[in-house]
C-alpha cells in the first residue's frame, strides 16, 4: 500500500509540480537568449500576442489540442513580429514603443475574442490567461505499489507535464547542439551574417521554440507569468556570472528552483502563514523576481554607471 499522505501528494501535487518546474526551466533556458541579446521586451511581446491566436484556434477547433493552438499562436507571434518590424522601419517609432503598441493591441484582441464568445468558458477563460490552470492537473494516482510497477496508472496521467518535460529536453538538446552558432549569432549578428550563418533564420528558430514554450506553458503558468520566467531567472544569472555556459545553466537552475520553491511555498507555506494556499504560478513569478532583486542589490550596490543611458522606458 502507498501511504495515504504520499498518495495525496501524487494525486494533487506531483503533476502540477512537474509541470511548473519544467515550464519554468524551459522558459528560463530560452529566455536567457532574449536577455543576452537585450531583447527582453520581445519575450513580453510574444507572450502577450499569442493570445488571439490561441483563442482563435480554440474557437475554431473547440478543443485545447496542442497542435492547432500552437499553429494559431505561431501565426499570431509571427504577425506581431512582422508588425513590430514594419512599425520600427516605417513609423520611426522607437523599439520599445513599437513593441508595446503591438502586443497590447494583440492582447486586447485576444481578450475581446474571449469575452465576446461568452467569457465564462470552462476550458479557456481570462483567469487561465492570467495564471494558468495548475489545479486542474490531477492524476488518478495508484494506490498500491503493484500498480506503479505494472504501469497501469500511467495512462491516467495528464498530458501537459509530460509535454513540458519533453519541451525542456528538446530545447536543451537544440541549444547544446547549436551552441557555438547561437553564441556567434547572439554576440555579433553582422559578423555571423558575413560568415553565412543566417542569423535571421537562427533567431526565427529560437523565437519559434520560445513561442512553443509559451503555448505549452499556458496551462501551467498562464501567458503573462510566463514573461516573468522568460526574463527574471536569466537577468539574475546575468548578474552573477561572466561566462556564457554557466550563465545559461544558472538561468535554467534558477528557473527550476523558482518553480519548485514557488509551488511548495504557495501550497504548503502559505497555508501555514496565512491559513490558505495562494496562487502557485503567481508565487513562482514573484519568487523569480525576488531572486533578481536580491542579486541586483548584491551586485549593484555602490556600482553606479554614470554614463549609462537612461532607461528607455
Amino acid at each position, binding site marked *: 500500500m502507498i501511504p495515504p499522505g504520499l498518495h495525496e501528494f501524487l494525486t494533487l501535487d506531483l503533476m502540477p509540480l512537474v509541470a511548473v518546474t519544467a515550464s519554468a526551466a524551459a522558459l528560463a533556458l530560452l529566455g536567457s537568449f532574449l536577455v543576452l*541579446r537585450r531583447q527582453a521586451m520581445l519575450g513580453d511581446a510574444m507572450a502577450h500576442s499569442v493570445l488571439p491566436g490561441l483563442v482563435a484556434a480554440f474557437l475554431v477547433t473547440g478543443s485545447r489540442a496542442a497542435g492547432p493552438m500552437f499553429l494559431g499562436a505561431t501565426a499570431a507571434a509571427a504577425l506581431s513580429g512582422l508588425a513590430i518590424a514594419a512599425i520600427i522601419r*516605417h513609423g520611426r517609432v522607437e523599439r520599445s514603443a513599437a513593441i508595446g503598441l503591438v502586443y497590447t493591441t494583440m492582447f486586447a484582441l485576444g481578450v475581446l475574442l474571449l469575452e465576446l464568445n461568452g467569457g465564462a468558458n470552462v476550458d479557456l477563460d481570462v483567469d487561465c490567461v492570467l495564471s494558468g490552470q495548475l489545479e486542474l492537473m490531477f492524476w488518478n494516482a495508484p494506490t498500491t505499489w503493484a500498480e506503479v510497477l505494472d504501469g497501469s496508472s500511467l495512462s491516467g496521467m495528464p498530458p501537459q507535464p509530460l509535454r513540458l518535460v519533453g519541451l525542456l529536453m528538446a530545447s536543451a538538446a537544440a541549444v547544446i547542439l547549436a*551552441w*557555438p552558432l547561437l553564441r556567434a549569432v547572439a554576440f555579433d549578428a553582422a*559578423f555571423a551574417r*558575413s560568415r553565412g550563418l543566417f542569423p535571421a533564420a537562427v533567431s526565427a528558430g529560437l523565437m519559434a521554440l520560445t513561442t512553443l514554450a509559451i503555448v505549452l506553458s499556458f496551462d501551467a503558468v498562464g501567458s503573462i507569468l510566463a514573461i516573468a520566467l522568460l526574463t527574471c531567472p536569466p537577468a539574475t544569472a*546575468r548578474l552573477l556570472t561572466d561566462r556564457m555556459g554557466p550563465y545559461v545553466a544558472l538561468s535554467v537552475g534558477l528557473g527550476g528552483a523558482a518553480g519548485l520553491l514557488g509551488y511548495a511555498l504557495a501550497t504548503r507555506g502559505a497555508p501555514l502563514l496565512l491559513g490558505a494556499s495562494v496562487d502557485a504560478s503567481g508565487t513562482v513569478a514573484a519568487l523569480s523576481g525576488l531572486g533578481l532583486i536580491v542579486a541586483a542589490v548584491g551586485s549593484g550596490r555602490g556600482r553606479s554607471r554614470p554614463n549609462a543611458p537612461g532607461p528607455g522606458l
Partner: protein
Amino acid sequence: MILRSGESRAPLALRSLSVAYRGVPALWDVSWEAREGAMTAIVGPNGAGKSTLLNAAMGALRPLAGEAFFWGQTFADVRSRVAYVPQRESVDWDFPVTALEVVEMGSARRLDWLLPTWVRRGTANRGHRQEARGCLEELGLGAFADRPIGQLSGGQQQRVFLARALAQRADLLLLDEPFAGVDSETEGALFQRLRRLCSEGTTVVAVHHDLETARSRFDDAMLMAGSVVATGPAADALSEDNVRRAFAPGSRATVQLA
C-alpha cells in the same frame, strides 16, 4: 570559376551601387575598385554611407540598383575569402564570452559551429582552437585568452576583433572603423601587422575617420559623401580641396539631385 564577362578580377568592385533607407538615398551610384594587395581607406563625413557601402557589398542590404563583385564573383561564392570586422558599436561588449571564444568564431569551419567544446573534447576542434590562440598571441593578447571581453580595454577589444579576422585566413579584410578607441601606440602596431598582410598579397579595405593617418598609413583612399568624391593614391584623393568638397555642408544634397 564563373566570371561575368567584362568584370574585373579586383578583390572588390562596385558597379553603380545605390542604396536607400526609407526612401532616402544613403549611397548613390558608387563605382569603385579596390586594388589587390593594397590598403585602402574609405573616408567621408558622418552619414556619408561608408558602413552602408560595406554592408551592401556583402549583400546584407538590398541595393536599389548596381552590383558588387569580389574577384569577379558574388559575395556568397567567396564568403570564406572575406573577413569582416563590424563597427565597434554594433556589439554588446558586456557579452559573456571570452577573447579566445570570439577569435574561435573566426577560425571555425563548418562543423565547428555545432556542439560546445566540452562535448567535442579531443576531436577535430582542437585544430581551430590552436589557430585561434595563435592569432591572439600574435596580437599580444595571449595572456587575455580566457578573460571575458568586457574586462578588456577598448584597444584590446579591437585587437580581439582583428585577431578574429586574421583567424579567418582571408584574402580580403573589410574593416569598419578598426581603430576606434585604440591608443596611438597600439594603432601603430596594428598598422604594421596589416602592412605585413598586404605584402603577403592580402587586400585591406578600412573605413577610417582620421584624415592624417589615412594619408600617411594607407596606400589608396576612397573619399565619399553619399557618392564618390575622389579615389586614387591616398595623398592625392585626400587633397585639401577634395576633402573640403566632401565635408562641405550639404555635400550630400548632390545625391538627391542625381
